[in-house]
């Protein structure tokens, strides 16, 4: 038999054990042997996420729709995978800025705004009430069920159990006592509670062991393994639908939204923030938690379905599925398992309630009560008296009040819903923090007004679409409104807003509240601009990993060290305050606090210490009351504004510089490529030139040696050889001259003597200059010139050089005796064109482009004697290009070639306004 005294004794014995663990951990706190400095303890403390909802409610949810319980744990698994980035950043920020709670975090991000802090606190407290009522309901029901042992008396409506309300009330009050004893025995600096964390980690172990024990018992003792249970359930017509959980309408949409909701919950439930961020002792612990915490959740969920199906098989009706964990071992008279489950359930519920209420009470105290008190005291009177007692009293009062409110919620609405549905309402409430929190952590553009708008909008939609229907459903109020919409407007029905029907109420509320929340945050943030403090805090939060060391102090006033010590003393206790200031003085090389220079640094230090206890917003306000504010004159205001705008201008400048650098890099790369190509061309050129120089040199040397070695050479031969030496020397000279000429032209160093010229004269001069060669080779030449042409601007010698070159080429490639060369000059739009036509051997089409390159000579170089240097046409093309014209060839092998070039009329003058001073004759 399980007597009620036995159950009560067991409960208190267990709580006593928890106190012992907490006390032991507190004794070792802070030291190297600290109990909670192990990553596994951190991971287990995160498992405070698994509450009575997990312990009893998961089975209930699984019995209802098969998989509905899973996203609640898969969402956090996914979010924790990002923990190395997101959670670690939160921890780092909280350490740097001395954050004490969730509300403090958000308020600090938005310029230490008291309004934001208060808003987050209100949302958290009201939002979490259903969740706390859930724990009360679960513990009270389990206690009542247990007292009926061995009879299983659990009607669908748990409310019809005798004295359930009364039991729940006692449970609430006992839990308040535990929370006060655990969390508010004394004021901890930085809101760290090592003993509490150790106890929570232990509770996590207990509930896991208890749940796995009952899971193994049901699966392998009552049934023959999971296959047996699933097989029997599939055979039941009423249960086979649970084998196809995603087939139901909207099941997948609900699944996805529940996952998203739970992802937010693992970060933004006040108790999760407390254990994961505030109580974290070493951010490297996150690395272990990334897999250990999901593993915990997997382990505690493996047996949920077998228990749910086992329960449904064992109790076809009449038993609330939320109680299967307890009623299955009860029905089989397994007292040990039953008691273990009961203790596990207490563990799950007390862990959650203690951490949640401690976290909430800190928020209520620092962000609702203290600002009010400060406001009331603003009217000139200095703050007096010891505030440590006051703070503790406020927090204890807040814990009792929160649990009482949770109890009232349970009485008013809790009985209409299953455990999981109640908890999800709370999840949806804290999810409203997600946009302001997460975007604020990664985007500097979010403003205080944007955060306020987002929180208010999201919370209002949550109230309307979730809390109101919850109350209405329990027949409390607003039934008419929920059924027909306000003033009978169907479109505004809270559970089917704008006609969005067919979804789970939670999914429905999440969709609308997230749309409104996000739109308000982005819209208001983008419409306004952040103030100087907001900007500074935004930088601190977003760039926390890039900063080293402390923030620059923001104080512009002074106060005495004694005044600060007395202020600190009121909140931290006299002894603690004196100790802190002494340590501060020693660190700065003073013997005592007397030596401290009152100034911005000291004020900043005091603010940080206070922030560790009462939150950033309140600490700022408190220090302001004792700081002798030096009135800001217009110069100082201008300086502050200047600093702010400098920061903005500087960051803009940085962006510009970066862009410039990028484009400079690109053009440098291109230039480098070009240089490499030029370098290669230069190498080619040099090797070709040396090759060309060697040919005449070799002949000169050969003939000279013959002459030298054979003094008795026949005079005729000697004469012939000498002539060859002279000819080759001339060729060498010509080659060198031309190489120099080309180099000059290409580098732009060549001198140009531009003058107005008549092109007909140059053509005539060139023809008469070459007439001797033509005669010698028996080639006829005639020139067709118009009567008059416009004068051009050019260098006479250069144009002459081109003409001579073309004419000598023409005669060179004509057959001796029957060659004919024609020179034509014609005017075309904007230019004069000169053509030199021959009837020589012609040029292959594939060679026509090559002949203009350096050292390209067409023809068989092995048999033909080289007829030129191979630079003439390259020089010509260079000259014509410089004049602004074009040089090209048309040719057919065997029929002759036509070389043409143009000289622009006006363009030459306009594009090259070279000084026409040094004129040639």
């Amino acid at each position, binding site marked *: 038999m399980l007597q009620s005294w036995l159950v009560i004794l067991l409960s208190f014995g267990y709580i006593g054990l928890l106190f012992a663990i907490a006390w032991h951990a507190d004794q070792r706190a802070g030291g190297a042997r600290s109990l909670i400095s192990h990553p596994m303890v951190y991971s287990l403390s995160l498992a405070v996420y698994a509450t009575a909802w997990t312990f009893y409610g998961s089975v209930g949810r699984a019995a209802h729709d098969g998989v509905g319980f899973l996203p609640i744990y898969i969402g956090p698994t996914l979010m924790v995978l990002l923990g190395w980035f997101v959670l670690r950043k939160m921890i780092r920020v909280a350490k740097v800025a001395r954050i004490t709670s969730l509300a403090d975090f958000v308020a600090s991000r938005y310029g230490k705004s008291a309004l934001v802090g208060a808003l987050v606190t209100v949302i958290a407290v009201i939002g979490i009430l259903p969740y706390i009522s859930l724990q009360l309901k679960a513990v009270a029901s389990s206690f009542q069920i247990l007292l009926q042992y061995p009879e299983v008396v659990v009607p669908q409506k748990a409310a019809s159990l005798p004295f359930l309300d009364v039991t729940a009330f006692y449970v609430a009050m006992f839990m308040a006592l535990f929370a006060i004893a655990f969390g508010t025995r004394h004021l901890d600096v930085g809101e760290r509670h090592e003993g509490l964390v150790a106890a929570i980690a232990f509770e996590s172990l207990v509930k896991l062991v208890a749940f796995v024990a009952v899971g193994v018992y049901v699966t392998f003792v009552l049934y023959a393994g999971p*296959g047996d249970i699933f097989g029997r359930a599939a055979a039941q017509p009423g249960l086979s639908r649970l*084998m196809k959980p995603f087939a139901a309408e909207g099941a997948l949409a609900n699944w996805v939204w529940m996952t998203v909701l739970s992802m937010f919950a693992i970060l933004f439930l006040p108790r999760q923030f407390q254990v994961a961020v505030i109580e974290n002792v070493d951010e490297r612990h996150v690395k272990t938690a990334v897999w250990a915490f999901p593993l915990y959740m997997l382990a505690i969920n493996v047996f949920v379905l077998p228990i749910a199906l086992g329960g449904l098989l064992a109790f076809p009706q009449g038993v609330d599925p939320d109680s299967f964990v307890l009623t299955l071992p009860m029905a089989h008279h397994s007292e040990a398992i039953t008691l273990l489950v009961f203790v596990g359930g207490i563990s799950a519920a007390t862990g959650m309630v203690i951490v949640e209420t401690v976290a909430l009470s800190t928020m209520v105290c620092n962000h609702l009560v203290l600002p009010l008190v400060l406001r009331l005291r603003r009217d000139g009177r200095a703050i007096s008296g010891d505030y440590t007692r006051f703070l503790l009293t406020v927090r204890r009062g807040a814990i009792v009040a929160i649990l009482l409110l949770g109890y009232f919620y349970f009485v008013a609405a809790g009985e209409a819903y299953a455990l999981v549905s109640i908890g999800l309402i709370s999840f949806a409430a804290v999810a409203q923090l997600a946009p302001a929190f997460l975007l604020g952590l990664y985007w500097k553009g979010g403003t205080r007004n944007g955060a306020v708008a987002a929180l208010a909008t999201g919370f209002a939609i949550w109230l309307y679409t979730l809390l109101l229907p919850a109350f209405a459903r329990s027949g409390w109020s607003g039934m008419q409104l929920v059924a027909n919409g306000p003033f009978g407007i169907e479109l505004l029905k809270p559970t089917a807003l704008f006609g969005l029907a067919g979804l789970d109420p939670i999914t429905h509320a999440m969709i609308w509240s997230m749309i409104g929340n996000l739109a308000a945050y982005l819209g208001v943030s983008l419409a306004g601009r952040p103030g100087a403090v907001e900007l500074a805090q935004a930088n601190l939060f977003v760039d926390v990993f890039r900063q080293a060391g402390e923030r620059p102090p923001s104080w512009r006033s002074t106060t005495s060290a004694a005044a600060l010590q007395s202020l600190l003393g009121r909140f931290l206790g006299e002894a603690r305050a004196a100790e802190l200031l002494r340590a501060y003085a020693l660190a700065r090389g003073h013997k005592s606090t007397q030596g401290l220079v009152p100034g911005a640094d000291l004020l900043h230090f005091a603010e940080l210490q206070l922030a560790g206890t009462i939150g950033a917003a309140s600490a700022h306000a408190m220090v302001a009351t004792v700081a002798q504010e030096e009135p800001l004159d217009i110069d100082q205001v201008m300086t502050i504004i200047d600093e702010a705008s400098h920061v903005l201008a500087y960051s803009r400048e940085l962006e510009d510089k970066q862009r410039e650098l990028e484009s400079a890099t690109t053009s440098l790369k291109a230039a480098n490529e070009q240089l490499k190509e030029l370098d290669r061309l230069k190498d080619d050129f040099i090797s070709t030139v040396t090759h060309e120089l060697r040919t005449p040199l070799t002949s000169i040397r050969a003939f000279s040696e013959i002459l030298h070695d054979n003094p008795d050479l026949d005079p005729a031969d000697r004469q012939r050889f000498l002539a060859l030496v002279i000819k080759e020397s001339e060729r060498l000279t010509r080659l060198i001259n031309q190489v120099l000429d080309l180099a000059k032209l290409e580098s732009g160093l060549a001198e140009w003597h531009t003058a107005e010229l008549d092109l007909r004269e140059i053509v005539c001069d060139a023809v008469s200059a070459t007439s001797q060669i033509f005669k010698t080779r028996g080639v006829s030449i005639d020139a067709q010139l118009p009567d008059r042409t416009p004068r051009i601007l050019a260098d006479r010698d250069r144009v002459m050089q081109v003409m001579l070159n073309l004419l000598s080429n023409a005669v060179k490639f004509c057959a001796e005796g029957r060659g004919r060369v024609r020179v034509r000059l014609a005017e075309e739009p904007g230019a004069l064109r000169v053509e030199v036509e021959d009837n020589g051997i012609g040029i292959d089409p594939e060679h026509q482009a090559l002949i203009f390159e350096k050292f390209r000579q067409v023809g068989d170089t092995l048999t033909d004697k080289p007829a030129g240097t191979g630079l003439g046409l390259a020089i010509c093309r260079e000259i014509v290009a410089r004049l602004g014209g074009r040089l090209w060839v048309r040719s057919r092998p065997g029929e002759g070639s036509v070389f043409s070039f143009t000289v622009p009329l006006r363009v030459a003058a306009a594009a090259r306004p070279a000084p026409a001073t040094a004129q040639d004759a």
Partner: protein
Amino acid sequence: MERGRRGQGFVALFMLGCLLFNYPLLEIFERPVTVVGVPLVYAYLFGAWALLIAAAAWIARRMD
């Protein structure tokens, strides 16, 4: 630098998880097939979950 790069494995796992526990994979695995007596969709859900955890533990270990 090296640590930061390795941490990115977690982001990849997160994305993989978002795909695994989503439409259409969930629907694909909802078949009248059992694995050791357990419906395929449940075996898949817990199997994929365990896989993610194992991969996360492996990445965390490599970061040491």
